[in-house]
């Protein structure tokens, strides 16, 4: 199987879907001539033309609204937010228009919003956010957050083919740091299915996005030093999240650490913890633990951001306490 970077896998998914279905088109700021701030759509304008690779005005509400309108009449737009942080400027469109259309009107809204998310790239407060929990709370939106090149390509294809609006959280930190085998044949990763990224019996780290790799590192280290066998469950989809996979893992390992790069309070981890407590309490040998970023805006200085993020040392500390409970 060919090896691709995370960002190449995203580009490949877009390219193949545009070749497959003429209703698929892209819109966003600087995605055409410039090829996107991160070059996800480099070469797309030349191949697909300016009607399908649209350099828009700098106006997120207009972008998300136009995607929604086009989806209403059967097109399959993929809108790019240059940085996930800027989705706030289109927030009303997403939560009041896009998300509720199917419930109100019974009409599908097959659109995708791509959200380059996350910190660890020295982006500071306005180019580093993980905004998923705002949308997690909004009925009507699907949320996916791949951690590998394989999942990124398969989930983006699934998102484009889905009849509902899907927010696709992709991680700038992973773009060129993560590589993996990606089939050249067409495939999708179904929305709503988690994936065990590492098998284990002593505890489960439930996570998604960039912290999957932090969790895998920590699990590897702790297996070497303390001979604990930690499972890493990658949610991949946040809404809907894979309840079955969570229960299966928790019932086997009996100890859970929920980990996300988003800030802790009000993050998705709280909902996962509540779900486990309501549905698998009898199987737990320790209270469910959560680890996320500090409850602050994302800081700029490297010393501060390192402290802010839920890095490997913090995960190891939490894991040890959990395993020794």
């Amino acid at each position: 199987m060919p090896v691709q970077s995370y960002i190449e896998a995203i580009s490949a998914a877009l390219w193949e879907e545009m070749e497959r279905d003429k209703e698929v088109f892209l819109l966003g700021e600087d995605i055409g001539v410039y090829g996107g701030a991160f070059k996800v759509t480099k070469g797309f304008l030349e191949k697909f033309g300016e009607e399908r690779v649209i350099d828009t005005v700098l106006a997120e509400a207009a972008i998300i609204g136009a995607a929604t309108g086009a989806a209403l009449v059967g097109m399959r737009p993929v809108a790019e937010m240059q940085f996930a942080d800027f989705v706030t400027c289109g927030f009303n469109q997403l939560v009041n228009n896009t998300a509720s259309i199917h419930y109100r009107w019974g009409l599908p809204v097959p659109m995708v919003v791509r959200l380059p998310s996350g910190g660890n790239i020295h982006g500071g407060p306005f180019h580093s956010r993980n905004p998923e929990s705002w949308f997690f709370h909004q009925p009507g939106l699907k949320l996916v957050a791949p951690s590998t090149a394989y999942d990124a390509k398969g989930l983006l294809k699934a998102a484009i083919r889905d009849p509902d609006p899907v927010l696709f959280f992709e991680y700038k930190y992973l773009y060129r740091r993560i590589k993996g085998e990606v089939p050249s044949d067409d495939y999708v990763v179904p929305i709503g299915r988690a994936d065990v990224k590492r098998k284990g019996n002593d505890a489960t780290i439930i996570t998604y996005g960039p912290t999957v790799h932090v969790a895998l590192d920590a699990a590897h280290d702790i297996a070497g030093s303390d001979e604990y066998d930690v499972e890493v469950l990658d949610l991949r989809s946040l809404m809907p999240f894979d309840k079955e996979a969570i229960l299966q893992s928790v019932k086997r390992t009996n100890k859970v650490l929920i980990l996300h790069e988003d800030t802790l309070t009000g993050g998705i981890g709280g909902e996962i913890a509540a779900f486990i407590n309501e549905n698998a309490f009898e199987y737990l040998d320790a209270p469910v633990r959560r680890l996320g970023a500090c409850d602050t805006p994302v800081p700029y200085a490297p010393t501060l951001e390192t402290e802010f993020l839920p890095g490997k040392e913090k995960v190891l500390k939490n894991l040890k306490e959990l395993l020794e409970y």
Partner: protein
Amino acid sequence: MKVQEIQKKNTNSLSQELSRLNLLREDAVRLYYYMVLTREFENSILKLYRQGKIIGGAYTGNGNEATSVGSCFALRKSDYLFPMHRDIGAHFVKGQTPYQLYLQHLARGSGFTRGRDGTGHYADTELRIYGNISHLAAMIPLANGVALAVKNRKEDSVVLNYIGDGGSNVGDFHEALAMASVMKLPLILIIENNQFAYSTPLHKQYACKNLSDRAIGYGIPGVTVDGTDILQVYAETKKAVERARAGDGPSLIESVTMRMHGHSAHDDASYVPKEMYEIWNKRDPIRQFERKLFDWGILDEDEKIKMSEEINHTLTTSAEDAVKEPYPHGSEVTDGVFAKI
């Protein structure tokens, strides 16, 4: 432009006006019919509200009938309509039935939104009507999206969308016009300037001379029309529609009217100076056009009474039938959040 100035321009005889606009006498009768139907329908909505049969809010477009009907009359069947809550007239022109609108207002399970939402907040894909959400300006970017799809598919449909004087201050209005103008989208945006945004008068809303002046900033045509004069509204909308259909891009029309009722049925609008009602009452869009039709022998008293009776009969039976329909069953509440689970 002040309303008095607009009125002075309106000196053509009706028959001349009709031939200039390429309208038949039957078209003139239909324009009148839709305005009367709209007013009577909205009066019945207020009645149902006061009887406690319509819950929540009841909004009317009393005073706005010429704007709503006249503009939508410039559309083809294949064109898209994004109406506001003061545009029931446009729904009717597009082909909607009173029965369907009653079901929707009454939150019945068999209505377009199956009781998920009320008033004109529905979509009818067959008639190509996409109702508003309460954040009115939020519909303009959606209208752009439909216009973009139409343009890229090389269809020759256009999209007609309305906003209020208040809504024209919302960021979505400006973002959407910025996008529509550079992409030359087939969009016609009508600002229904009805003197008040809820209770807020115009001088607290904008400092430019006319709201149509905002078009200058986007390099698109902007015109102010007398929104009580249905032929003037039709004529200017028609021009904008033709421009959009030819691929020349969007237009902005400011239609100056008066909101003759409160913001919604609960609002006594005591903040509106009485003289304003007196002035605007003299310019009632329906009576204004009726006088013309009478003068030119297109309509007489008997025909008017007959039309009125037919409308009221249709409305009464439609409302009675709709009231008999049940609410959606409570157990359906979680149905349909997603198209695919």
